[in-house]
């Protein structure tokens, strides 16, 4: 499965079940209403999720997106409408702190961004934005720091009320 297939799903061109590419990461289908209606809030929420909201930049839904933020594959089963809406409009900096991005610049000038996994006196381990597990010797590192602020933005004033509600409807459908 790739992003284009998500978009084609958006357009109602493919049935609801999608599979991984032969060599890609296995993934289950994103659940969808079987009758695709453009007016469906879930459908329009998916459009916001994959489009304007750019949520896949940080989040994963069943094999799509990025591993850097919390996995939202079953967020609908774990959260409530009010809870999801609040997370979109007033993201909690405390809870998202663990997902802060980390950046390492090595002495040879290369720069890496991702999730800091582990560190000790001599080394640092990271999952970078390209999906690589990387290990650095501290002696090779020129600079390192958390990228501020925490990556989860507030969507207040970035999405319309209707877009937020559609996005919430889509997220609630992920069970």
């Amino acid at each position, binding site marked *: 499965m790739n992003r284009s297939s998500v978009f084609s799903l958006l357009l109602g061109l493919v049935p609801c079940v999608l599979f*991984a590419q032969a060599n890609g*990461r296995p993934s289950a289908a994103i659940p969808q209403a079987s009758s695709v209606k453009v007016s469906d809030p879930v459908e329009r929420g998916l459009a916001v999720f994959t489009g304007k909201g750019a949520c896949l930049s*940080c989040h994963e839904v069943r094999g799509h*997106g990025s*591993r850097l933020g919390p996995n939202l594959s079953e967020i609908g089963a774990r959260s409530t409408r009010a809870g999801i809406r609040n997370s979109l409009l007033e993201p909690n900096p405390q809870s998202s702190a663990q997902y802060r991005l980390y950046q390492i610049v090595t002495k040879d000038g290369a720069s890496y*961004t991702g999730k800091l996994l*582990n560190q000790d006196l001599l080394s640092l381990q990271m999952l970078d934005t390209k999906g690589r597990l990387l290990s650095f010797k501290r002696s090779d590192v020129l600079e390192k720091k958390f990228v501020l602020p925490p990556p989860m933005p507030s969507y207040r004033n*970035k999405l319309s009320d209707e877009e937020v509600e559609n996005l919430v409807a889509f997220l609630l459908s992920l069970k």
Partner: protein
Amino acid sequence: MERMCIRCHQADVITGQRLSRERWAAKVDQMIAYGAQGSDDDVKVLVDYLAQNYGKSGAGTTSVETAAPPVRSNVLQEGRSVRQFQKELTTPYDVPSPTAVTDRRLLHAEQEPENWLTFNGSYRSNHYSSLDQIKPENIKDLELKWVFQSRSLDAYESTPLVVNGVLYTMEGDNVVALDAATGRLFWIYRNSAAADVRFCCGRVNRGLAILGDTIFLASPDARLIALDAKTGSLVWSVEVAKVSSGYSLTVAPLVVKNKVILGISGGEYGVRGFIAAYDAATGNEEWHFNTIAGPGDPGSNTWGGDSWKRGGGPAWLTGSYDPDLNLLYWGVGNPGPDFNGDVRPGDNLYTCSMLALDPDTGKLKWYYQANPHNETDWDAIQVPVLVDMKWEGKPRKVLLWADRNGFFYVLDRVTGQFLMAKAFVKQNWNAGFTKEGRPLLTEQAQRTKEGATLFPDLQGGTNWFSPSYSQRTHLFYVNARDNQSYVFIKANQEYEEGAEYKSEGRAPRTKGSRPTVGMDEDKFTAVRALEPSTGQVKWEFRLDSGVGLATYHDYKAEHGAAGILTTASDLLFTGGHEGNFVGIDARNGRLLWSRNLGGALLMNPMTYSVAGRQYVAVNAGTSLFVFGLRDADAIRHRSEAPKASATEAAGNE
């Protein structure tokens, strides 16, 4: 500015600043990284506008910027292009990651010896690596690079996988991803497997499989689990069989194409064994081959009554795969109950057999049964090694196989034809073979009320630890156990679901507390190098793992040894339960190097390289030890780009 900035900021936050063009450009880039939307042209126009109107020397303004030093600490601003940074952030990983292990990579695993992609190292399962940086001339310079201490007290029998510098292994039931060069942890998957699973021989796991960016774990509680190889998070988990019926899993799965294939454990608990394949993407069972022929199956007439229902036949070690023939080779274990065949009259197909299956459908293509109607627990699960060699002057695709019953077999792997069998340990059960390969039994193989002495012992001439076939020496290496058992008088036992079902009798004890195993002090384990075409022993290297050292690791010491690894520099690595990790000259059996690691060596040694440096890994006790050359030495002996191992085609004379 309105479109790109005012969506998030009050205007005076921007207009109140006075910055140089460079600083404004950097600021805009930073905002883009935080989610501001705009094209390259938008950015240019915006920076021009800001610099002109709110610049450091803008008309009618006073610079508020002091002569601050460059913001050195802000790597975001000074590193590389912020646009590049943003692009990275929006790269979805449903595009396979650069390290994804495609099925094509698995097919050609031998061409990337820096990695170890399957339990057996390659589909041919020869436990041979074309790495040659560590060699007889410098093996004395091997030093310990790192140790991974498992927090589990269960036996460490898991062969790690290595993929592009990441080493995946087990910590008891858990899975860990480590930096293969330093041993530092990337992630751990804490597997909450049921605690009440029954195992005949310890709660062990032999290792993992990988496809794409997904790791597959055969969990002890008979579940197949898929994990994200990058994070260790759960992708899916499916039940393979009922723990309450005596099933368990100890096997390292094997990925073929898009399927994850495994064999079940539980042969001592009256299970009906099977080999099954699961869709790698979903965990759905794709096919299921019962290793016990039931009603309607060919071979069902080899089971009296309904004995097939609890006929055993586990398949608890990873098989091999020939992509050209599209055949999967997998060994099947003992029938149940283990020690009393009276309740299961017949040959008991397909127990104690080597199977060739179609990996797409699970359909049986051929089989060879090494021990029909076995009553000595001689699982035939040992690793089948696939070799193309000359047989009686003609090229032939063969399967080399050192069975627990003490015989080295050569089978035609296209047809299953029996070509040869020769004992590689002392044995007294076999009086020869029919032309078709059916064994003829001696009197010693028959049970008597008094019990009898049997060679090899019940643990076998060898066991699950891997053999190796070197593409340079063309020798087959096996850790051979010369030992004897006092076989039991048959006992009768009622079957009870989930309970041990072995019909284990008791023989008169001679000495020691273990009547099943001979305690003679001249019994030992040895590496034996066999000529595949004759089965003749070319050389032998005795390990110290005799039964006299049983105190080293409880019953495990009876099993003999670790597996065997050979390399393109004619080195052979192995070890025993006394704790010695040894490097031997694969050409002549000469000991070149040895380290005592202070615990029983159980797993199959494996090798890999990171950044041009070769490592060799083996367990001892419950820890994983990783060796490499001293730094200066490694640099001096750094190999050229790894060569494809093409020597196999030259065949074996």
